């Protein structure tokens, strides 16, 4: 689509703000001034003051010569930034893409916006009327490029709208300053007798560059639309967002469900075309009383399966309080990842860990039982049993090293080793019998010891001597002795696991 830009110029931004606050200043000539090297320098002048020839940059003493009744107010630093920021956010009603053009303007990307207000002229007059209502004087311009809109807003003599593709002719009668160039360059143009753009636009580019520099050429080309120009919007536009305004406020659960389903269908269709999947999704419900209720879901694996996403939302729907009714639903995909569907095998309904149905099942578990409900383990390069495994961060993460098979490990391990009473010959023989939970186990076969040292750089503590033992009944246990035998203290024996 053809781009259209609107430039707004608040020529008395700061003084207008003072007038809004103190309506008595409306007719009084006044200036804002700041102290600089022991004198007061004017930073902004109100309309009546300007009519008397008082300009920005003058010293207050000089201005008083022209107009003895001049009122002088303190300049507030940072005021224009704050005002422009507020105005830009307010102006999002006219276009979703609003940027600040410091120190006294705003730029809209109005592509496809004007027809909603009944055409370019009506669009601009609405903007002017609404901002006048807030007490601000402004000039506007509309064109295909930011540069042309800027120029026409500030220096235009006739219509504020430049018709599509007409910027090169519309710019001709404007002064060189309308190209957003430095004051010094502007003066050089006037010195050379070039008072309008048409005086130099047909000159060879190479001589223009030699005399006025590359920056000037770039500005000229941007205004003519030969070079792209980018703007920084005040509110970043959500890429994956769907809105559903409702004619009547929604109060019932079935109404919310229908709205959510419609939004999901639209969003998923779009994601499918772009081969993306959702990781985090948020539903904002704007209520009649201006409250916004937000519920969000997350998935473990990118998904664009509407039914599945709806199921995840289903548990959270009861938390929405419609009160007097919801008038706008906004579904926003906060986190989106690339998602190329894997090829499924017809003859075998198994896709291992890549299976989307598995990911969906885990999403449902996560939704119901909390994020920490499923674990997948990978081997870690530690001998200490508790540290020999680590949690994998994702479903697909492959193991970096092999699972060790050279030392026996029990299939069941107790979360905390349980103390047992043992009869064992010294120095390093396995126990002959042990008592656990009141039951005596006579040991028939045993392997060991396998000494595992603490990793001192991680934790301090005693080493463990592990024994695999089997009792008379054939039950197999994993026992360990903590530390060396010592005459002074009791040596602890523990049961740590059960072999299959």
């Amino acid at each position: 689509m053809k781009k259209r830009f609107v430039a707004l110029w608040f020529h008395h931004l700061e003084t207008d703000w003072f007038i809004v606050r103190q309506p008595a200043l409306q007719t009084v000539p006044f200036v804002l001034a700041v102290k600089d090297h022991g004198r007061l320098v004017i930073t902004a002048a109100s309309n009546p003051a300007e009519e008397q020839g008082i300009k920005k940059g003058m010293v207050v003493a000089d201005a008083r010569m022209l107009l003895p009744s001049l009122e002088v107010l303190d300049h507030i630093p940072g005021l224009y930034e704050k005002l422009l920021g507020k105005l830009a956010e307010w102006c999002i009603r006219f276009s979703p893409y609003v940027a600040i053009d410091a120190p006294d303007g705003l730029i809209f990307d109005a592509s496809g916006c004007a027809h909603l207000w009944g055409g370019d002229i009506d669009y601009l007059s609405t903007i002017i009327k609404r901002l006048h209502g807030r007490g601000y004087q402004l000039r506007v311009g509309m064109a295909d490029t930011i540069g042309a809109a800027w120029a026409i807003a500030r220096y235009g003599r006739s219509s504020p709208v430049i018709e599509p593709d007409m910027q090169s002719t519309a710019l001709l009668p404007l002064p060189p300053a309308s190209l957003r160039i430095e004051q010094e360059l502007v003066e050089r143009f006037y010195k050379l007798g070039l008072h309008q753009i048409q005086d130099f636009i047909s000159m060879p580019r190479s001589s223009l560059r030699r005399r006025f520099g590359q920056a000037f050429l770039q500005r000229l080309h941007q205004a003519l639309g030969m070079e792209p120009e980018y703007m920084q919007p005040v509110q970043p536009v959500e890429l994956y967002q769907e809105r559903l305004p409702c004619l009547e406020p929604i109060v019932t659960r079935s109404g919310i469900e229908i709205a959510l389903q419609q939004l999901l269908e639209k969003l998923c269709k779009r994601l499918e075309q772009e081969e993306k999947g959702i990781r985090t999704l948020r539903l904002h419900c704007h209520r009649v009383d201006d409250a916004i209720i937000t519920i969000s879901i997350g998935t473990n694996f990118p998904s664009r399966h509407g039914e599945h996403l709806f199921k995840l939302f289903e548990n959270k729907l009861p938390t929405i309080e419609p009160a007097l009714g919801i008038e706008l639903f906004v579904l926003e995909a906060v986190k989106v990842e690339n998602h190329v569907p894997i090829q499924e095998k017809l003859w075998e309904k198994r896709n291992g860990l890549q299976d989307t149905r598995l990911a969906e099942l885990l999403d449902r578990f996560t939704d119901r039982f909390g994020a920490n409900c499923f674990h997948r383990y990978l081997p870690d390069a530690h001998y200490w049993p508790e540290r020999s495994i680590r949690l994998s961060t994702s479903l697909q993460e492959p193991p970096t090293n092999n699972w060790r098979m050279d030392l026996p490990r029990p299939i069941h391990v107790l979360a905390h080793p349980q103390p047992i009473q043992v009869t064992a010959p010294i120095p390093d023989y396995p126990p002959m019998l042990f008592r656990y939970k009141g039951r005596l186990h006579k040991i028939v076969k045993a392997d060991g010891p396998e000494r595992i040292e603490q990793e001192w750089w991680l934790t301090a503590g005693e080493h463990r001597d592990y024994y695999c033992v089997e009792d008379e009944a054939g039950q197999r246990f994993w026992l360990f002795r903590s530390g060396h035998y010592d005459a002074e203290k009791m040596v602890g024996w523990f049961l740590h696991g059960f072999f299959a």
Partner: protein
Amino acid sequence: MNQPNSDIIRQLQHEILPLQGYRSAWGESFIKIDLGPVNAAFPNARFPVGAIHEFMVNSPEEKAATSGFIAAILSFLMQREGVVLWISAGRNIFPPALAFFNIDPHRIIFIDLHNQKQVSWAVEEALKLQGLAAVIGDLRELDFTASRRLQLAVEKSRVTGFLLNASRNNSNTNASLCRWQISPVPSIPIDELPGLGYPCWQVKLLKVRNGRPGSWEIAWMNKQFVAKHNTRIMIPEWHKKTG
């Protein structure tokens, strides 16, 4: 009985078995589960996949033995990229030990929940999902209604379900296809050496629909099940103990 009659009976048996829950799982044609001497207990001498197997557990030692036995069966089921969900509250499986049963522990996803109600719900949801190799559920209780629901779920999805039933009176009737009890028995020494050997279990098949229940002592050695009494003939080529 004359020849045509027995043919008719065999034909009818073939039709009845699927109705009783003996269905083939997805991709099962590639998988052969060899339980050694226990095979004879099942109709068609095939371990029933896509069904509910219930394991009675009375002590922590029995639970470890049962986990080992299930892990050994999983080694067949998890060939070809299969994924297993192990659902429990208060899990004590040590994943590295599963590698000794010839399975990749990283292809098992452990679902750790807080109470039995959550476990029952999760097991049912998991069993409904086509494409899993197996689902293992650690239950404290299993009544008839619950088991019926689970059996119906697997008949549709053809996932094999293993339920560890640790309830006090676990002899209640329920709808599972097989009921097992596994207890540890002294291991088989490796090369006549002292110390622990290959794991051995007393496998009791208490109930099997349309099969012959029985009791066997079997060992897991060299990636397969072997009857304990004829292990001496075997020459171990894989000199590794199993955990």
